[in-house]
C-alpha cells in the first residue's frame, strides 16, 4: 500500500532530477581532477559546465544558463584545448 503512494508527481520528478544532476556534477568534477589524460579532464570540466548550465535553467536563471553555455561549455573548453595542443597531453 505504501508503494502506491509513491506516484510520480512532477514535484518528485523535479527533485529527483536535480538530485541526480547535482550528483553527476560532483562526479564530473572529481573525474576531471583525477583523470590523468588531460584531454579527458578537460572534457570533464566542460561536462561540469554543461550540467551547471542545466541547473541554472532549473533555478530560473536563463541569462546565467546562456552565459555558462556560451562561455563555460564552448569558449573555456576551446581555450583549454588550444592550450593543451601547445603543451603536453598527459599528466606525469
Amino acid at each position, binding site marked *: 500500500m505504501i508503494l502506491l503512494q509513491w506516484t510520480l508527481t512532477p514535484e518528485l520528478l523535479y527533485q529527483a532530477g*536535480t*538530485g541526480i544532476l*547535482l*550528483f553527476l*556534477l*560532483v562526479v564530473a*568534477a*572529481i573525474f*576531471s*581532477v583525477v583523470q590523468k589524460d*588531460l584531454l579527458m*579532464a*578537460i572534457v570533464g*570540466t566542460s561536462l*561540469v*559546465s554543461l550540467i*551547471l548550465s542545466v*541547473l*541554472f535553467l532549473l*533555478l*530560473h*536563471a*536563463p*541569462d*546565467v544558463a546562456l*552565459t*555558462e553555455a556560451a*562561455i*563555460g561549455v564552448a*569558449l*573555456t573548453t576551446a*581555450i*583549454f584545448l588550444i*592550450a*593543451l595542443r*601547445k*603543451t*603536453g597531453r598527459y*599528466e*606525469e
Partner: protein
Amino acid sequence: MIYYIASIAVMLIGLYAVLVKKNLIKIVIGLSLMDAGTHLLLVAIGFIKGGTAPIFSEPGLTADAMVDPVPQALVLTAIVIGLAVTAVALALVIRIYAQHKTLDIRKISSLKW
C-alpha cells in the same frame, strides 16, 4: 540545501586540485572548478520556490513571483571574470611550457613552494 552542499563540494574539489596537483593545466582546471562552485552557490542563494525567471516577458507576471535577480547579475559578471583569469593563466602555462618543455611543477625549480 543539497545545492549548497554540492556547490561547496565542487569548490573544495577544485581547491584540492590547486593545492595538491602537480600539473599546471590541472591547477588551472582546479581554479575554474572553484569558480563554478561559487557561481552555483550564488544562483542557488537567489532561488525562490515557485518563482519564475526575472523577465517580464508575459503580461501576467508580477514581481512577487520571481526569483532574486541580483545574484544572477553578479554571477554573470563573475563568469566573465573567471574566463579572463583562465585565459591569462593558460597563456602563462603555454609560455612556461615553451621554456621548460614540461608542465610538471616538480621539474620547474622556481615553482616549488
